C-alpha cells in the first residue's frame, strides 16, 4: 500500500458504528465519529460512559485486556482498518502515540525515558538520539527546566513535569496522532495550565484526541467535542456549539452540571 501524503486527509480517524464489549458487557453502542486532522478533539462524559475505552481502541491498547472485543463496526485511521490482519500493532502504536492519566515515567533517568522509544526502534547513534531528546523536550516545553539534569531519575520531577516528560517521550517516536487519557487529572492548576498550553502548541503538527473530565478544559483547548453517555455518543460538534447551544437535552444538562 502506498502511504498517502498527510495533507490528503480531512479526517485522521473515522469510526463507524462501533460496538464494543468487555466479556458479555457491552460498553459502546453504535458509535460513529470522524476526527479531523490537526485539531484537538475532546471526549467528555460522566465516569463509565466508555470514552476511555474508545480512546484506547484507537491504538488497540484494549488488546491487552482479556475479553475485550469489537463485535461490530470499524476504526479507520488514514482510511485503513486498524483491525485488519495485515496491520502490525507495533507500527500502529508508533503512529498513534498515547499519554496516560497517571504520569508514569520509567524509573530511569530523564534522558533514558526519552531515548527508550528510539532504542526499541533500533536507533543507537548517540548524536541522533541526543538531538531527538533535545527536540522532544523542547516541543514539550520541558527542555529549559531539565537540560542540566538529564541524567537524574525522572521521579525527581514534579507531577506536571513528569506528565510533560511523558508527552515528550511520546513525541520522540514521531507519531501523527496523540491520544491523551485525562492527562491533567492529577495535576494542580498551574501544571495543568502548562500542559494545556503545550497541547495547543502541538495542534499544528499533530492530531490530538483528549479524554477529559474537566469541561472548562475541553472548552479551552478543543476544537471539537464529543459527549458520551452510557456508551452512546450523544452529540459531536464544534466545541463552541456544544457548550453554547447544544442540540440535545442530555448534553445541556451535563454541561450545566445537572448530573455527572
Amino acid at each position, binding site marked *: 500500500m502506498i502511504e498517502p501524503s498527510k495533507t490528503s486527509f480531512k479526517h485522521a480517524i473515522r469510526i463507524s458504528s462501533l460496538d464494543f464489549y468487555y466479556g458479555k458487557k457491552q460498553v459502546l453502542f453504535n458509535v460513529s465519529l470522524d476526527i479531523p486532522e490537526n485539531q484537538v478533539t475532546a471526549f467528555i462524559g460522566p465516569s463509565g460512559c466508555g470514552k476511555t475505552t474508545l480512546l484506547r481502541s484507537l491504538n488497540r491498547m484494549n488488546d491487552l485486556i482479556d475479553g475485550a472485543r469489537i463485535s461490530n463496526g470499524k476504526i479507520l485511521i488514514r482510511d485503513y482498518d486498524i483491525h485488519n490482519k495485515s496491520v502490525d500493532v507495533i507500527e500502529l*502504536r508508533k503512529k498513534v502515540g498515547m499519554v496516560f492519566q497517571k504520569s508514569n515515567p520509567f524509573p530511569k533517568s530523564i534522558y533514558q525515558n526519552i531515548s527508550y522509544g528510539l532504542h*526499541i526502534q533500533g536507533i543507537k547513534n548517540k548524536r541522533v538520539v541526543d538531538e531527538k531528546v533535545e527536540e522532544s523536550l523542547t516541543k514539550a516545553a520541558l527542555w529549559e527546566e531539565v537540560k542540566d539534569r538529564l541524567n537524574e531519575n525522572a521521579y525527581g520531577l514534579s507531577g506536571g513535569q513528569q506528565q510533560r516528560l511523558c508527552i515528550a517521550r511520546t513525541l520522540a517516536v514521531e507519531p501523527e496522532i496523540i491520544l491523551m487519557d485525562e492527562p491533567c487529572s492529577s495535576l494542580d492548576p498551574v501544571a495543568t495550565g502548562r500542559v494545556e498550553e503545550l497541547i495547543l502548541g502541538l495542534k499544528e503538527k499533530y492530531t490530538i484526541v483528549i479524554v477529559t473530565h474537566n469541561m472548562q478544559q475541553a472548552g479551552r483547548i478543543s476544537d471539537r467535542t464529543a459527549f458520551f453517555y452510557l456508551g452512546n455518543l450523544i452529540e459531536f460538534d464544534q466545541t463552541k456549539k456544544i457548550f453554547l447551544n447544544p442540540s440535545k437535552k442530555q448534553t445541556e444538562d451535563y454541561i450545566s452540571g445537572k448530573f455527572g
Partner: protein
Amino acid sequence: MNLNKMDSYNPFQSSFSKEKMVEKIAFSVMRSATYFVLFCAAYLFWDIFSKGSNKLFEGDGINWEFLTQKPQTLHVIEANGTTQKLSSEKYYKFKEKKTLEKWEQLTSTLTYIDSLKFLEKNLTLVLSETSISNLEIILENLILVESQSSNRKFEYWISLLSDAELTAKDFEIKESQVFSLVSSFIKSFFSTEGNRFRVLESEIAFFKANYFQEIASPDIEGLNVLRLKYLKFLETHLPKVATRFRDLGKKLHKSKRTFFENPTPQKLTELNSAATNYLNLRKLIFRLNENENSKIWEAISSNLETFNRIVQVEIQSKDFSYSGGGIFPAIVGSILLVVGAMVIAILLGVFCAIFLAEYGKSGRFLSMIRLAILNLSGVPSIIFGLFGFGLFVIFLDWNVSLIAGWFTLAIMVLPIIITASEESLRSIPQGFRESSLALGASKWTMIRTSVLPYAMPGIITSSILGVARVAGETAPIMFTAAYAMRSELPWEGLEHWSDFFFQGVMALPYHIYIVSTKIPQNEYTIDMQYGTALVFLVFIIAVTSLSVILRSRLRKKYRW
C-alpha cells in the same frame, strides 16, 4: 489540695471491663511468644558459635588449616607433658622431624662411622656377584639345582604310585586314596614353586592349569610326561628369575650410591628395603651352595637392621578418623552445588514466571498450574532426593554427580522462585507495560526492558530464600551428589572437561551428617561437627547479606 483527695474525685477513673482484661492477656501471650522465638534464635546462635569457635579459632586467630585442608585423621599425642592434636599431615611431618633428630645423634657417633665404612666396603664387594659374567654361572647353577630337586620330587611321586599298597600302609590310608594323595602333593608343590619364584607366579599357574588332567588324576606314565614338560619349562623360564636378580642388584647398587652420597633416614629405609628384596631372592638362588659372600651378607643385613631400628621412631598416638584436617572440599562442593542449582533454577523459574504472569491468559488451566507449583513446594526434601535418584542417577545414568545434584536441588527450589518471581512481576505497575507498548515496543521488548529490570529486586529476594534452602538441604543431595569423603578437589584429576559435571562432591550439610552419625563420637568429633556447622552458618549469613545488599542497591536504582 491533697493529691489523694483529688483521686477520689477523679472523673476519668478507670473501670473494670472484660475487653481490657482480654487485651492484657492477649498482649502477654504475644509478648511471650515473641520473646520465646528470640530466645530460641539466640540460644541456637550462641550454641553453634561457642562450640564451633573451638575449632574455627583454634590456636591464634582463625584456624586456616580447618578452612583450607581436606579431612584427615586426627592424631592425639602426648609430647613434652602436654596433649597435642595433630592432623595426619602434621603428624607425619612431626614424626619425620623426630626421626631426623635421632639420626643426627646417630651420625655423630664413632660406631656409626665405622659401621658405615664397613657397609660401603662390603656392599661394593658382594654386589660384584651380579656382574654379567657371574650371571651366566648363577643361571646355570639355578637351572641345575632346580631341575635336580624337581626331578627328585617327581621320582618320589612315581615311586608312591608304583607301589600303591605300601604307600597306603605307610600313610595309613586306603589304597584308593593314594592317587588323590599324590595329586595333592603335586598341587602343593606347584603352589610353593609359585611362591618361591614370585616373578614366575603367573607362568606356573598357567602351566598347572594346562596339565590339570595329569595333576588331578596322576598315573605313572602321565607323571613322566609332566616331569619332562616341567624340566623344559624351568629351562625356558628360569632366565627371567636371573634377570630379576640382576635388576634387584642394580637397584640395590643405586640406593647404596645415593645413600652414601648423602645419608638420610629416608634413604636408609630405601636402602634397607632394596637390600631385603635382593637378599630374599639371593637366598633362593644360592640356597644349596653357600659361598663366602653369604657370611658377609649376614653381617651386612644385621648392620642395616640395627640402623633401621635406631631410625624407626614410634610416637604413641590415639587416632580419630575425620576429626583432623579441614573441610575445604565440603566448602567448595557446597558452593558449586549452590551456584549451579541456582543458575538452573533462576533460568527455569524466571522464564516460567514470565509465562505465567505475562503471557498466560487467566483461566482454569493456569490456576491448575499454579496449584501444582504450590503443592510442589510442600513436598518433603527427601522425596526430591528419591526423585532425583530415580530420574537423574538411575534413568539418565548420570551417577552420583554434580549435575544430578544441581537438577534435583533446582527442581526443589523452583516453586519458591516461580511463585515469588511471578509475585514481583505482577507488582510492576501496569503503566510501565502500557507506556512501553504505546511507544511501539513488542511484547517481548516490553517485558525485557520495562518489566524484568524492575522486577529483578523481587526476584533476587526470592532467590535468597532459594539459596539458603539449596545450601542447607541434606536429603536431596544424599543420593544424587554428595560423597561422604573424597580426597580430590573437583578440579583435580579430570580426564576431560565434561567429567567435571559427572563427579560427586563433598557438601557441608552432608559432612555434618556424616561426622555426627557415621563415626564413633568423642570430644574431637564434636569439635569437628560444630566447627563445620559454624562455617556453614557463616556461609549462609554471608550469602544472604550479599543478596540483601544487592537487592537494596537495585531498589535504589529503580525506585518509583
